[in-house]
């Protein structure tokens, strides 16, 4: 199987969907002529031309709102936010218009739009550019949220997101863009709402989403190596819809849970998952659910400090030991 990067996987998904459906249009700042600020859309303009691959001015509220309107009439816009952080410029368009249009029209109108871009810290771009808004987004009924942690899922989820008839917020990660793994050539889909057990284990479940899953896998190796602990690692992949069954199965098996994510702790996805676990699997828990998040402050610029602010392999490793105490 070919080994390709997360970036290439996203590009392949978009290419395949552009070829499959004439209503798919890629839009965003610098996506066409400049080949994408992070080169995710590299080569697409040359291949598919300016009708399908469109550069926009710096007008997030305008062009994303326009995408919502175009989706109402049946286009499938895939809109890049250069940084997902810029979603807040378009907040009203996303959370009032895209999220509510179906409901307020009594189901008469749907909104098959995808908003994609990197939502992560770790590259010293400061507080304004480092937001991780997956729980803010998933809070809104009508919105779907996807956070792939690897190239395979990035491709399969992107294809599903583009075909989905609801608005999907697709949160990527600049640090993962260059990460590679085996990705089949051609057609496959990863359905939204299916979590994946990345590693089987019996002593505790490390559940999470996004890049921290990669850290969790390393921490799991260390737990095995140093303490003979078998950690199960579960990647949610999709935040809303949420695969409750896979989460609960893992909890029933290991009885101990550590949630890992890059977001801030207040009302995070981990907080929601912990709530679901205590509601639906309380009797299976041998310890409180613990969470590893970013330290609760705006993203600091200072490079060595930002490393400490974000989840690290070591913090996950230590927290896992705590959960097992």
């Amino acid at each position, binding site marked *: 199987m070919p080994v390709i990067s997360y970036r290439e996987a996203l590009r392949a998904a978009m290419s395949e969907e552009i070829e499959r459906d004439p209503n798919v249009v890629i839009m965003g*700042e*610098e996506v066409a*002529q*400049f*080949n994408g*600020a992070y080169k995710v859309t590299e080569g697409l303009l040359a291949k598919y031309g300016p009708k399908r691959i469109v*550069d926009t*001015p*710096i*007008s*997030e*509220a*305008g062009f994303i709102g326009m995408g919502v309107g175009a989706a109402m009439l049946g286009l499938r816009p895939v809109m890049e936010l250069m940084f997902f*952080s*810029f979603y807040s*410029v378009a907040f009203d368009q996303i959370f009032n218009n895209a999220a509510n249009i179906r409901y307020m029209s009594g189901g008469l109108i749907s909104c098959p739009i995808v908003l994609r871009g990197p939502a992560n810290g770790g*590259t*010293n*771009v*400061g*507080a*304004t*550019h480092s937001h991780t808004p997956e729980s803010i987004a998933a809070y809104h009924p009508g919105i779907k949220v996807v956070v792939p942690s690897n190239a395979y899922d990035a491709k399969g989820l992107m294809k599903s997101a583009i075909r989905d008839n609801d608005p999907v917020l697709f949160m990527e990660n600049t640090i993962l863009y260059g990460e590679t793994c085996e990705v089949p050539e051609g057609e496959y889909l990863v359905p939204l709402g299916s979590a994946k057990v990345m590693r089987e284990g019996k002593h505790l479940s490390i559940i999470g989403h996004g890049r921290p899953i990669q850290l969790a896998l390393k921490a799991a190796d260390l737990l095995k190596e140093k303490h003979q602990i078998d950690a199960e690692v579960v990647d949610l992949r999709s935040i809303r819809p949420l695969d409750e069954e896979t989460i609960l199965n893992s909890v029933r098996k290991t009885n101990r849970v550590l949630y890992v994510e890059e977001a*801030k*702790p*207040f009302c995070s996805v981990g907080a929601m998952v912990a709530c679901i676990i205590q509601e639906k699997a309380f009797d299976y828990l041998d310890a409180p659910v613990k969470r590893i*998040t970013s*330290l*609760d*402050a*705006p993203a*600091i*610029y*200072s*490079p*060595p*400090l*930002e490393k*400490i*602010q974000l989840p690290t392999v070591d913090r996950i490793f230590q927290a896992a030991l705590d959960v097992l105490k």
Partner: protein
Amino acid sequence: MSKKSPSKKAEVAVSDYDARLAPINVKLGQDEKIQLYRDMVRIRRFEERCLRSYQQGKIGGFLHLYIGQESIAVGCVSVMGDNDHIITAYRDHGHGLAVGMGMNEMMAENYGKYTGCSKGKGGSMHYFDPSRNFWGGHGIVGGQIPLGTGIAYALKYKGIKGACLAFMGDGAVNQGAVHESYNLAALWSLPVVFVIENNGYSMGTSQARSSAGPSLAERAAGYDMNWEILENGHDVLEVRDKVSQALKLAHEKSLPSVLEIRTYRYRGHSVADPDTTYRDKQEIEEYKRTKDPLMVFQNALLAEKTLTDDLVRKIDEEARAEAENSAQFAEASPYPTVEDIKKDVYWEIDNPADRKSQGALFFD
């Protein structure tokens, strides 16, 4: 200043116009002219040193260089009075130095050190110095423009005879918040000068590919606001003249203006931009050869014997040494501590003796 039918007047004005004869420039003493030149040289040398540090991996994130645009920050700040304020976007090194921030605190900020102007928390895009009426340093394109409008509102509210210079790029003019600010400023007669630093590109997108309409400044006409295009943004004296007129209008009549200042950036959008896809090298070289703001002003001052070759050399050496020292200062400075991550988030946490609210503010 007030132009409702743009084209003709502008042309006449350009041909007869000599910025040196403007009252604000006629009264400039030799030392003041030398200082203007020195300020531009200091910006350039500082940024060249930043670039080296970035290439050495000492600076993280983004580094947006102002090289080529120095005449604007220096010219604008040189005509600001004590009650005038300034706010800009992420390309903020020039504005920082122009208002009098030190190279040490700026370089240390770039290095993420505790001795930086924001204690290493903001980085290169987010400089602030409210003690010098400089309100940042903002990373979200267009996001600073409502803030600048709000500073003008507060000045007017408090009855202070001052204005706010609110800077943005040619790409930022397409943000909705900019247009909302224009309307508020015009509707409520706020003392704000919107300064568009039009360097021709927003990242890899030329003005023609991003903005409709005959010019960026002319959009102000829709709000019945004063507007003007400065073709010679490289000329620090012209910048001084036009900006001081707009400031006067703000001070005396509390009227807003939009100034579009044509300029050029020599480097890529940020240091990470290879700058190979959207303009040709010749365009850059041509600008450097004919309109470099340092060169143009240096030549003018040499011709009138305000500067000598010796003095030019001395100013340059001093600026290089100052920049080099700032890099050493930054290098030797400590990083913030882990505890610092949670400071400066809430006023009440930083001032526990005066805390009035109860309950948890942090949730780790």
